[in-house]
């Protein structure tokens, strides 16, 4: 079990005493990596912003239940992943309801995203990633883009390291097949 660093523990204590300034430091430190993983999952910037906002508000509200047995970063990542998965599941459920509006098509979002700054190869690569199931996609993104160690990923996703390695391996192969067959 990991015990969090002393400075982090003190920062949490300050937050629990109601210090918004202390929480500001937490937001500043974690907002970019959390946004990055959320954005790659939902593609749309506005959706990513909303999910990131919910993540921090939930973290602030539930900070007293954080048991300090894992790093704060891991705990916040877990909240962000849960929020993202819930969001994607709700969009998928919605697309099954007749007359509920247009399907939530991530490829289409990618095509129309004004904040996507990649070339054609990058776009194809993202489309290949989008063919993966959500859980596999998050494993791939965490490993490939964020370079998160399997041990930490295991804590965040509640999956064994072996299963994560296998999942990543399959994901890479699928992406490679997609890229070669285009």
């Amino acid at each position, binding site marked *: 079990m990991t015990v969090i660093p002393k400075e982090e523990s003190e920062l949490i204590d300050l937050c629990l005493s*109601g210090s918004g300034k202390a*929480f500001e430091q937490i937001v500043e430190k974690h907002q970019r990596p959390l946004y*990055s993983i959320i954005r790659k999952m939902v593609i749309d910037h506005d959706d990513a912003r909303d999910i*990131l906002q919910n993540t921090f508000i939930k973290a602030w509200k539930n900070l007293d239940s954080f048991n300090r047995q894992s790093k704060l970063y891991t705990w916040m990542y877990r909240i962000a992943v849960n929020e993202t998965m819930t969001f994607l599941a709700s969009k998928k459920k919605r697309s099954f309801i007749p007359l509920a509006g247009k399907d939530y098509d991530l490829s289409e979002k990618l095509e129309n995203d004004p904040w996507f700054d990649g070339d054609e190869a990058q776009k194809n690569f993202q489309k290949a990633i989008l063919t993966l199931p959500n859980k596999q996609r998050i494993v791939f993104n965490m490993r490939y883009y964020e370079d998160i160690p399997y041990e930490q990923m295991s804590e965040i996703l509640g999956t064994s390291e072996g299963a994560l390695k296998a999942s990543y391996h399959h994901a890479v192969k699928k*992406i490679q097949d997609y890229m070669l067959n285009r």
Partner: protein
Amino acid sequence: MENIEDITKNFPKGDPFKVPEGFFDQFQEEIQARVTRRVMPVSLFQKIRQPLKLAASFALLVIFSWLVVLFIQYNRSGSQTATTDISDTLGYDYSFVDEYVAAAVMTDTSAATPLQPDAMVDFLLDRDVSYELLADYY
């Protein structure tokens, strides 16, 4: 079998997802505003509002119980008064029923079981009646 690192070497590098300029600064301010709103210092009234509500509820309960007790007591005395009222309505005025009247009724020979004078004297002695009446029966 192809090494996984060899495959990923050929994948595009870098993060193609950008954010609007100043997004993270603005985002931090938004979160800060929401969090600060949640920890606004509470006034004295806000602090005591909850216990005050509890005390008021308790006081109301006590007052209500007291009113119920009063109502029950009032009804009981009311029923006693009602009995007197009924006898008044029926025309009985017990102030006229003195020992003479009672004795006359009890010794009435036309009654089904009239009392004998000796029995009457014993009866009246027990009830501490006037000597005048007792004398009549002796």
